[in-house]
């Protein structure tokens, strides 16, 4: 009871946040909160099996899948909240509000009888109870569901499969192409330098230093440079020099 009154406002707020947040990742996180809260509400309503399934399947698998796809798709102009269809937002809010009011009003009119409670149904435990029903009354639906899942898996693979249009280049082809590029356009034929080892943590945001001490542009991803998350090597260098100086002072000066 207390759990409900704590979770319910939280869930509504998070749901609204999911709708209005600009970044899709934030939406996903909001949704995670709603789902976990739902799981708790399931538990509060004598449905421990669904509690577990909600956590594992929804929060665990489905949301992970969402995040995975979000990473693949990346930042997109469609994330913006500017409405492009004329009147769509206004109408959507109006009709949505109407819908919600009508639903709630309807529910308010309903007189619900006494709550039976699941004590009797769960007398052997909730999981055996669900299992007994699932493998007796609902066994056919259950089997059909298995077929649905297999079909969905195969369908996803088919959709995700990319037909190769040209022969896969062999290592020899690639080497020849590299040499041709070098001859024609002077493209560096060797491997690009790795990120800098001038690092204090396991990161790829630090450029490698060239022999003259300048950072190599080629050693870091272009995406990171575009996002401006590349570490400033000069700042690091200065900090390190300062630390070294301090260390030397502590050791008793000048002894390098």
């Amino acid at each position, binding site marked *: 009871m207390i759990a409900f009154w704590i979770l319910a406002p939280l869930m*509504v707020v998070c749901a609204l946040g999911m709708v209005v947040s600009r970044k899709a990742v934030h*939406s996903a996180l909001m949704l995670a909160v709603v789902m976990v809260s739902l799981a708790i509400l399931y538990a509060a309503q004598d449905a421990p099996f669904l509690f577990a399934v909600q956590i594992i399947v929804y929060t665990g698998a489905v949301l992970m899948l969402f995040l995975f796809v979000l990473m693949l798709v990346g930042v997109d102009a469609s994330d913006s909240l500017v409405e492009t269809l004329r009147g769509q937002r206004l109408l959507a809010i109006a009709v*949505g*509000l109407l819908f919600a009011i009508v639903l*709630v009003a309807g529910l308010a009119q309903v007189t619900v*009888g006494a*709550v039976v409670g699941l004590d009797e149904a769960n007398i052997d435990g909730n999981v055996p109870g669900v299992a007994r029903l699932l493998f007796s*009354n609902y066994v056919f639906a259950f089997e059909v569901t298995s077929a649905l899942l297999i079909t969905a898996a195969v369908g996803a693979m088919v*959709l*995700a499969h990319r037909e190769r249009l040209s022969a896969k280049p062999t290592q020899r082809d690639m080497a020849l192409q590299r040499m041709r590029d070098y001859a024609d356009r002077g493209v560096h034929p060797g491997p690009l330098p790795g990120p800098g080892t001038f690092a204090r943590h396991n990161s790829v945001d630090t450029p490698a230093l060239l022999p003259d001490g300048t950072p190599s542009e080629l050693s870091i991803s272009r995406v990171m440079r575009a996002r401006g998350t590349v570490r400033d090597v000069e700042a690091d260098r200065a900090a390190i020099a300062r630390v070294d100086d301090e260390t030397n002072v502590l050791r008793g000066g000048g002894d390098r």
Partner: protein
Amino acid sequence: MSPTPFLVLSALLFSIGTLGVLVRRNAIVVFMCVELMLNASNLAFVTFARQHGNLDGQIAAFFVMVVAAAEVVVGLAIIMTIFRTRRSASVDDASLLKY
């Protein structure tokens, strides 16, 4: 505890999910909103199961979850395919099927 607050919460979540479907353009977010709607209905199922004192409602919620999982797999695969060819995840961009 009376089931009515649960049902009202369910209705609210469902309406919010609907609203999200209508106003968001990012296909993935739209999908999340659909999931929210499904979850809202699950809550109602579970509540009614307790109300009636049998587990059929929970079974129904269970099936909804299974179907939702399958739907997410296929749906996201479709979004990926569209994104790969059109470089866009906006539901408004896929609007060729019209007059």
